[in-house]
């Protein structure tokens, strides 16, 4: 009896292992693909000339490809969408190595596996994959490598890609600023994974703040730093703290979960999400979210990879070693405004600024400040003023009417907060 019992329990205990094992080692694309892709496969291919049925895309993910929210989910979704648009079948032509930590050996092994599977292009989505990918790009000159959020590259088969999220942040800042004018509360909160340690978070905070100031020059943005990319319990606690102790009336965020928005809703204040439209999570609080359309890049890159005629031409075909798309390419955007919460004139104000940025006339970190006012009747006036960009310690970053901060600074070395940001 005991033996049978022990056997039964042992079987029960191994069930989750089997479940995990199959999701980890299964090499096809999984959830988002199977049924839909067959139908759309024939429709959209813009390459036409060559047969791409044996073209394979490899992807290295930091979290599980089965995630239903968050960073890995966004990338997987982007790759699958892009492949379907290009007439590739993600179920058979996408090979995934997921839950790969930022460890040189493990990333190198993942690359070897993907090359062994016959992948033509390999995407790595996490910053810490950079060194391994750079070395492997030299080792496999016939394979194309593309790395998100990093800064390394070569002249032939290895590029990096990232987006001008700060532009979308600026737009969400306008929505937040108009809301702060409407409620008469000049304190805004920002739950950030990190502060000045990473240019990514830093430029986002600065972009948001400048957007807020374009409509409400008296506003202060209180930034509270989590010290982790994902920490749901504290994402909620920090938002509540910003609302209760700092009296913030709008909560923005640079973290994965919707907890800050939910906290805002519970407290009867408002918020701007990130990464995905969080209106469903907090319908009475959420204004709009700064979001990424990763499929825009993946479609560009995979199409270039299929048509460039050899891995050595990949970087040239991509127009350079660093892809840095923004509002213009629709790589970043704001989610549809939540009509139930946004202040009057928000859409018009955002449209006016979007047009300025897309046309290349103006950018966020420059010596020109925008002033937006929404009149009683809803008309938006936009004025440009030559004004220095100053950090919150009073140092001048860009002189009045000066040129934009260089892209390399925004992606790599920005480590100051602009005027109006306070650490909480």
């Amino acid at each position, binding site marked *: 009896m005991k033996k049978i019992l022990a056997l039964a329990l042992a079987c029960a205990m191994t069930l989750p292992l089997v479940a995990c094992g199959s999701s980890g080692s299964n090499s096809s694309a999984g959830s988002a693909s199977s049924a839909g892709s067959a139908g759309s496969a024939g429709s959209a291919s813009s390459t036409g000339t060559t047969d791409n049925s044996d073209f394979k895309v490899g992807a290295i993910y930091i979290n599980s490809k*089965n995630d239903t929210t968050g960073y890995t989910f966004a990338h997987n979704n982007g790759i699958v969408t892009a492949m379907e648009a290009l007439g590739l079948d993600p179920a058979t032509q996408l090979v995934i190595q997921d839950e790969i930590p930022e460890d040189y050996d493990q990333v190198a092994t993942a690359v070897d596996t993907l090359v062994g599977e016959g992948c033509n292009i390999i995407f790595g989505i996490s910053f810490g994959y950079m060194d391994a990918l750079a070395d492997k790009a030299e080792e496999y000159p016939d394979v194309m490598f593309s790395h998100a959020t990093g800064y390394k590259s070569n002249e032939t088969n290895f590029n990096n890609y990232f987006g001008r999220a700060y532009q979308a942040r600026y737009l969400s800042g306008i929505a937040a600023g108009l809301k702060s004018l409407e409620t008469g509360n000049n304190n805004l909160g920002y739950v950030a994974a990190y502060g000045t340690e990473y240019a990514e978070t830093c430029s986002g905070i600065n972009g948001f703040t400048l957007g807020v100031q374009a409509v409400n020059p008296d506003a202060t943005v209180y930034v509270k730093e989590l*010290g982790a990319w994902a920490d749901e*319990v504290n994402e909620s606690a920090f938002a509540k703290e910003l609302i209760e102790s700092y009296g913030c009336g709008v909560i923005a965020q640079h973290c994965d979960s919707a907890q800050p928005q939910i906290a805002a809703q519970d407290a009867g204040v408002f918020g701007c999400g990130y990464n995905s439209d969080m209106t469903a999570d907090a319908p009475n609080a959420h204004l709009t979210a700064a979001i990424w359309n990763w499929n825009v890049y993946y479609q560009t890159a995979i199409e270039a990879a299929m048509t460039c005629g050899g891995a050595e031409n990949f970087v040239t075909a991509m127009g350079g070693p660093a892809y840095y798309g923004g509002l213009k390419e629709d790589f970043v955007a704001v989610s549809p405004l939540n009509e139930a919460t946004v202040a009057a004139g928000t859409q018009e104000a955002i449209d006016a600024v979007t047009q300025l940025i897309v046309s290349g006339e103006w950018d966020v970190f420059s010596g020109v400040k925008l002033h937006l006012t929404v009149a009683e009747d809803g008309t938006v006036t936009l004025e440009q003023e030559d004004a220095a960009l100053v950090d919150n310690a009073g140092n001048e970053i860009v002189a009045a009417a000066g040129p934009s901060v260089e892209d390399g600074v925004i992606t790599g070395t920005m480590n100051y907060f602009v005027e109006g940001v306070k*650490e909480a």
Partner: protein
Amino acid sequence: MEMDKLGVVTSFLHNIVVYNIPLLYGTTGEIIVEKSGSLNLGVEGIMAVGAIFGYIAGCYANSLGVGILTSFLAGALCGLIFAVLTVSLQANQNITGLTLTTFGLGVYFFVGNGLKSIAWPAMNDYPNIKNGFADLPIPGLSQIPLLGKGLFSHNVLVYLAVVIALCMWWYMNRTTPGLRLRSVGENPAAADSVGINVKRVQYLHICLGCGIMGIGGYYMGLNMSGSFNSSCWINGYGWIAVALVIFANWNPALAILGTFVFGFFNTLRVSGSSLAAAFPGPLGWLAGVPTQLYQALPFLITAVVLVVTSVRKREGSGLPASLGLNYFREER
């Protein structure tokens, strides 16, 4: 900006309770389990199982009571697995506990992700859960300035945790079954020789303790407004609870104090900067402490507590003498 000094302190106290009460559930539950002589390292997983099943059942029934009961039963069921393996089959307790953690987190994500891909129940759609979890100020006490809103204006599950801890203290120290429980943990052979059914006592209390942990998990799920994401609701609380048992010296009443002290350091990360801004003179230095140190603080405190309690003499310690040792009747 001028801070509301009283408001900041009150909010600090409030946060200590709101974000750390799961520790009290976990600690009380683990004390009961350990008092029966079993070292269960599966708290994290058991809380996760209690959380996911409690939340789902509570939502579908639109009843906080059903949620609490289900989370208790789900936790108790995990306890039953632990008891069958360690009490009946004599499996190693440490390994079994660790396996339960892996197992529990696996079940949590398996069920959660599975349900999320179909239709995740949002807490806002279930008014009885939402309202049931709302703060219930204790008449009188909650009017005390400064402390009132911080300590005596909480949801029903907070009060329940304190009541359970006090009841368990009374049960263990003032009742006959409690005495039997302690004797089994100290010396199961002796308890056996005076006619106590050792296995039954162990089974019962392992299940009871694990059930209480399950409620703690449910609390955490509700506190996160039932929003299911890629990170787990329990977030390491189960592990801290295991250490808090030692801090509390295996005394559920002391666990209340332990939770508060520990929560104090845990919550400095959240409220440190507002305390610094409200009291720039005495507490201004808090703003200069790097986030990373705040993150490490609870674990540093744990380490210090373990060192201090290890150095302390055995006398007066509540450590059950047979903790971690399987009792095999035939080897008596």
